């Protein structure tokens, strides 16, 4: 079986004079085990690989991809991509990046994770479920209890001289509990990511998912009011998806971001700093280089409330001109063309403890879950209207649960309204955020 580098370089052999060709070869193995009612619910094991090819000729760009190809099929894909390019419009911004040296991140591959056997994973999933349903009489069932891990590798080769690859390991655990009391059921969610399953301590997952479900039992709809609001890490995370769309240079260049033309302006509270950093290991989104081979780095999007810039890949940087360089944010799989994506995208931690945030939000609400952000928030206008559940804050502590609330505001209004940022930064997948206090928001209820 040809290795990834052989597959990627096969594409270059098919390049014609004057053509720029790039191949992105990827492979991975994955195992997932889920448990239900004290038994294994399912074990999924997977092996996949594929190659995506880009061809640029006369400023025209075409793509083609193929699953598990032979070197000959990769060369065929180059011909396909060439035919596709012939139908595309010329765009002077099309181009491949020049090779740059990068610092490897050996920590991304955790040798120890390979020592976790399939039997170990089964035991871990069963233990996670058994532990979770043993914590509280109101939680006797789970919706999901799952652990999984993967090993994956990438190799990129291009006619401009990129020839680089790396491997990584990832592992995760997830639990969704069903907390019941009479006719009422509430769900509680928890999720954690590590480099290897040998590092995953699953009991805190179970505890958190139990607590988050149980504490919502008896939730009622509150009266409409303007109150201080704390977005906990789960709820704040939901907003980062919308924020990532607004700082994506592709959206900015095409008039689809409310932040276009506003670099250098104070938009948010001076407590708000938003960063994308492809080299920190706290989040799982780290890599030595992006999916075009451009070295990863740190990009500040907001510093103390002021908009600093946007996330770029090679295309958007060339299109923006003005000396703009790719920020190392090209993102793709072998089936898709590269676009701008985030790496580790997070709100920088503040210095305030959660206790102090709670004390400062007296009479307000801690939001633990928001829904409809992907459909209810408009990255172009910045307006959003979403559903929320959470808990009343009384005497500096969490009190009665609340449901069926709606929050309507705008992204800039919310960023400006931040009056406290917690010291409890936590990553979920590759996005991270601490708890965030917003001085006042309208929560619509009854």
């Amino acid at each position, binding site marked *: 079986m040809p290795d990834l580098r052989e597959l990627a370089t096969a594409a270059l052999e098919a390049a014609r004079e004057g053509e720029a060709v790039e191949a992105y070869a990827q492979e991975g193995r994955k195992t997932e085990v889920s448990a239900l009612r004290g038994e294994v619910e399912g074990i999924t094991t997977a092996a996949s690989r594929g190659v995506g090819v880009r061809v640029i000729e006369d400023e025209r760009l075409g793509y*083609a991809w193929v699953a598990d190809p032979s070197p000959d099929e990769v060369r065929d894909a180059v011909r396909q991509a060439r035919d596709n390019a012939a*139908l595309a419009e010329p765009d002077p911004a099309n181009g491949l990046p020049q090779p740059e040296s990068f610092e490897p991140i050996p920590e991304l591959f955790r040798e120890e994770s390979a020592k976790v056997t399939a039997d170990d994973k089964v035991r871990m999933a069963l233990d996670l479920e058994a532990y979770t349903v043993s914590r509280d009489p109101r939680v006797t069932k789970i919706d999901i209890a799952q652990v999984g891990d993967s090993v994956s590798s990438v190799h990129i080769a291009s006619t401009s001289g990129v020839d680089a690859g790396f491997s990584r390991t990832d592992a995760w655990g997830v639990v969704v509990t069903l907390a019941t009391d009479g006719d009422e059921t509430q769900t509680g969610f928890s999720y954690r990511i590590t480099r290897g399953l040998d590092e995953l301590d699953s009991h805190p997952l179970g505890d958190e998912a139990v607590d988050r479900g149980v504490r919502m039992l008896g939730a009622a709809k509150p009266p409409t009011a303007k109150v201080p609001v704390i977005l906990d890490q789960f709820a704040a995370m939901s907003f980062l998806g919308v924020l990532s769309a607004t700082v994506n240079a592709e959206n900015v260049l095409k008039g689809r971001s409310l932040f276009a033309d506003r670099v250098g302006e104070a938009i948010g509270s001076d407590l708000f700093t938003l960063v994308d950093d492809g080299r920190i290991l706290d989040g799982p989104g780290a890599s030595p280089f992006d999916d075009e081979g451009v070295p990863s780095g740190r990009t500040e999007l907001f510093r103390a409330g002021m908009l600093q810039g946007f996330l770029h890949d090679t295309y958007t940087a060339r299109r923006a001109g003005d000396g703009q360089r790719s920020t190392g944010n090209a993102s793709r799989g072998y089936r898709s063309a590269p676009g701008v994506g985030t790496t580790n995208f997070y709100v920088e931690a503040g210095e305030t403890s959660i206790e102090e945030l709670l004390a400062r939000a007296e009479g307000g609400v801690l939001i633990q879950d928001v829904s409809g952000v992907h459909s209810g928030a408009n990255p172009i206008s910045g307006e959003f209207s979403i559903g929320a559940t959470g808990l009343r804050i009384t005497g500096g502590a969490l009190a009665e649960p609340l449901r069926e609330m709606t929050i309507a505001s705008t992204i800039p209004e919310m960023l400006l309204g931040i009056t406290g940022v917690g010291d409890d930064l936590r990553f979920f997948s590759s996005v991270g955020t601490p708890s965030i206090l917003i001085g006042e928001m309208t929560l619509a209820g009854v």
Partner: protein
Amino acid sequence: MLDRDLVAEVLRAARRRGGAFAEVYVEERSSTSIRLDDGKVEELTTGVDRGAGVRVAVGTTYGYAYSNRLDRDSLLQAAEAASAALAGDAPGSVVDLTTREGHGTNRAERQASDVPAATKVGWLREVDDAARGFSPEVSQVVGVYGDSLQRRLIAASDGRWVEEDRPRIRLVAQVVARRDGNIQTGHYGPAACAGVEFLDRFTPRAIAEKAADRAVTMLDSVPAPAGEMTAVLGPGAGGVLFHEAVGHPLEADAIDKDASVYVGMIGERCGSELIDGVDDATIPNGWGSYDFDDEGEASQRTVLFEKGVLQSFLYDRLRAEKDGVPSTGNGRRDGYSSPPIPRMTNTNILNGSSTPEDLIASTERGVYVVNLGGGQVNPASGDFVFGVSLGFLIEGGEVTKPVRGANLIGRAMDIMQGVDAVADDFDTWEGVCGKDGQSAPVGSGSPTLRISKITVGGTGA
């Protein structure tokens, strides 16, 4: 796609530790996608994906392994990996594989693969021209064209052998309209399991103009009111709500895990007696249609509600065998890399006897929802939320100003009870539904219907 003897050998290998059944799913999917943005064809991508998944099950426990290699060694390895989940040591049998013939639910008159890419690019240019020609306020247009042909082979140890091809086509227009600092978007993207003849019915021009009209209309929008009020859902929009809020809790995995508000409710009144609802995978060329589901079970029309009384859940093979009922043919998967789970197909509320005109005229105050932007539901609690991408105020029995930033929030049971009028103008909406990390193309449909009271979240007074 694969030799019958080889598939039988793989099935036997997968049953080396017994189990209730073993199954092989083989897929090859060729696809084309073209994106026009900012007046330019930006991406023209063609791809070929292929792979096989082997599943072994006992009770609701399963082992699943996939690979995108289709040679004998790789398939036998997958069979070995899948069977490792089982503890037994008595091999199971494999019945002779016999073809099950389908009806041809999704016939393509003109295969997309026979159409040159240049023609497809031409459709996107029509979208761009038509949207920009619609109004000088149209400032940005994205057109996305996609087609695919998915060839499937499903074989199982009980002797089933199913081969079915599924053609898909979709043309989407996303339009941005701008007036001074006010920016609004409009979106329309019909789709079907069909060939390119689909675009005779939904022409690129008509698709573009509908999206442009939506964007331009929203320029006049006022912030949506907040609070409890009456909502009239236009044709198709009610189907989306029905899919999310009611359909998901009826999927048998949610029922099995006790994570559904409908557990134990078959035969009970669960909604207004005006509600007749079905899940129907047999609709010719429907976005969620097929002859056979991804477990090789024949598709069917399943009645979910009759006059508001719950009739059935939606089953895949594992959950059906556990409950001792026949599968309803709802075992679907997002390709060879995913084990099947119970999913909806085309989920529809059927026509009632009111007319949309009467229904609006008899509504004093509320919102009229033309298009929902998507939403989510917690099947365990029934709580849902939906964004309204195009909506209007109803004032004094008339549809008046467009509203923006509205969403609908509620509980499945409450809104099903609250439907107090159903019209006779059924229409559909095609979407892609996400569940357990798997995507599935689904159709939703409904006539105009009215919910007497629902919470509207909005930014206005």
